[in-house]
């Protein structure tokens, strides 16, 4: 026998639902939202509005909140959406997944339920082969839930991120703190923009550092953009504020395909494919010892002069940038003679290797602009491990099977010529400007090694040395390399844009298979 009950009507139920939704959408409440704004930060939901094409964001897990380990509900009002907004939507018409940590809810701390939501996002990103975006503004793991040895079961988030690497693009936008182990989220991501002043990341937050080592510091001093975008190289781009950060995320994605099986999207341009660069002489000095700003050359070559630099303020002796050539995404790797003479050091090698791996993973062709006097030599760089760092760049450029085009503008010396995709590294096209100097080393260095005895025996060693140097200099001539068909052509610098576009189009159908291996053993 059933007992008649007074069940609520649908109106009442939907009203209750609306009420719950409204409470969750209110995040940490008006006061905490005001505090967030006072810190010059947007809320998680405001950031999502900026990231996605209008009206396309679909959320899940809005009604989730914190629980105790025993399953009892604890203070649902304190943890709307459990501190992380999760869902999917369109960016420039293409679907991506996003987890936006909400600092107004328990300082954006990562709780158990919130982490389950983000785990579902990662799974969806892999199942559907679509990009994953983290908008990070989080104090780190919610220690109240995580302290103790149930920690033994955690950590899969990084394992999953590693499986995602090179399959779908991963972006970790730093819009606030990201302390403790969660700093490995940006550490494993493909692109990490950082907001000046408000963002930071560190393996241990300031309070943990104090407890562990006694060192007094702040999250900002330890891990702000002034550290990671300039010194450590963990950050990819320093931006002024939240809107600029979200714009950078959208821009980065615009160059990439949704996954490693797709081609990058094209962006049509009115910029002529055969546009000449008529002010080359103003940009690049003929004196081979004189420095200049390579960014001027990159800007003139790219479609519409549009250049999106990755790590522009780190290892500035090399430029890594996403550009387009006749609508096609391409990655530029260019030496920067203005900084350290364009010589390569450990940070430059790391920066370039990482960028080459990124482009190769996502089918973005590579264009190398060479003006490199070589790797820095000496006791200091050996202590820093220049050999293993330089070897990373050799590894990356050798592994890359995307179309590769190399232009030697001026200097191409020693292993610098190799890592910048010299002939041995299978560029699809390799051309040189008429003043190119391709050689194992410069004339002065060479004579001191080759003619040591002759110079010492000469009546006038200084004159003899100069004569030998002049003789060696005669052998450094791009027409010699061209005559041996080692470079494909010597080109008028003004025609470089057309030459690059022809070369990229010529390699569009390139399919290169390497010998099977589980994986190489990359130097680190």
């Amino acid at each position, binding site marked *: 026998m059933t007992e008649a009950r007074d069940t609520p009507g649908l109106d009442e139920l939907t009203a209750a639902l609306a009420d719950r939704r409204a409470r969750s959408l209110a995040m940490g409440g008006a006061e905490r939202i005001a505090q967030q704004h006072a810190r010059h930060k947007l809320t998680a939901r405001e950031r999502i509005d900026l990231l996605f094409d209008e009206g396309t964001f679909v959320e899940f897990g809005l009604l989730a909140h914190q629980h105790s380990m025993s399953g009892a509900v604890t203070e649902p009002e304190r943890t709307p959406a459990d501190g992380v907004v999760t869902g999917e939507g369109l960016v420039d018409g293409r679907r991506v997944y996003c987890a936006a940590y909400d600092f107004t809810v328990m300082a954006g701390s990562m709780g158990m339920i919130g982490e389950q939501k983000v785990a579902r996002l990662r799974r969806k990103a892999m199942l559907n082969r679509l990009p994953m975006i983290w908008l990070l503004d989080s104090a780190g793991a919610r220690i109240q839930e995580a302290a103790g040895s149930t920690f033994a079961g955690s950590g899969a988030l990084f394992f999953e991120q590693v499986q995602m690497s090179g399959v779908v693009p991963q972006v970790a936008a730093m819009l606030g703190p990201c302390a403790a182990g969660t700093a490995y989220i940006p550490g494993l991501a493909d692109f990490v923009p950082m907001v000046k002043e408000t963002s930071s990341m560190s393996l241990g937050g300031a309070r943990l550092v104090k407890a562990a080592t006694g060192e007094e510091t702040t999250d900002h001093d330890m891990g702000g953009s002034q550290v990671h975008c300039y010194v450590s190289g963990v950050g990819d781009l320093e931006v002024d504020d939240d809107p600029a950060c979200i714009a950078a995320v959208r821009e980065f994605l615009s160059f990439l395909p949704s996954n490693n099986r797709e081609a990058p999207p094209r962006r049509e341009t009115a910029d002529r494919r055969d546009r000449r660069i008529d002010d080359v002489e103003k940009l690049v000095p003929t004196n081979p010892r004189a*420095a200049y700003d390579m960014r001027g050359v990159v800007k003139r070559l790219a479609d519409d002069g549009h250049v999106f630099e990755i790590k522009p303020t780190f290892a500035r002796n090399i430029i890594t940038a996403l550009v387009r050539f006749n609508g096609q995404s391409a990655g530029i790797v260019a030496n920067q003679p203005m900084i*350290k*003479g364009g010589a390569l050091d450990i940070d430059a090698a790391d920066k370039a290797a990482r960028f080459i791996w990124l482009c190769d993973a996502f089918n973005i062709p590579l264009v190398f602009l060479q003006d490199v006097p*070589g790797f*820095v030599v000496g006791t*200091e760089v050996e202590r820093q491990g220049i050999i293993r760092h330089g070897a990373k760049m050799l590894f990356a450029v050798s592994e890359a099977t995307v179309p590769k085009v190399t232009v030697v503008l001026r200097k191409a010396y020693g292993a610098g010529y190799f890592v910048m995709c010299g002939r041995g590294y299978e560029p699809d096209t390799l051309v040189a400007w008429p003043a190119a100097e391709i050689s194992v080393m*410069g004339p002065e260095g060479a004579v001191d090694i080759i003619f040591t005895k002759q110079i010492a025996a000469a009546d006038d060693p200084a004159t003899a040395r100069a004569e030998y140097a002049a003789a060696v200099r005669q052998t450094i001539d791009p027409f010699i390399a061209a005559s041996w068909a080692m470079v494909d052509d010597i080109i008028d610098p003004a025609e470089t844009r057309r030459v690059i576009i022809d070369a990229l189009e010529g390699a569009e159908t390139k399919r290169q298979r390497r010998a099977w291996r589980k994986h190489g053993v990359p130097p680190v």
Partner: protein
Amino acid sequence: MTEIKAELVGNLWKIVVEVGQAVEEDDTLMILESMKMEIPITTPASGTVTQILVREGEVVQEGQTVAIID
């Protein structure tokens, strides 16, 4: 006070400023000869050159302070 440091080991080829001279941000103070290049050592801040700690023809090490700007 800003310490100007050499970013690369090399031969200090030319000093183009004098003690007491006013300089603007990004001005070239000295030119280093290294890696077949003339590499300008510039100042990240405007001010006055108060000390020059190296001489032309000297070999400077990476990280060595070569001048002070106040």
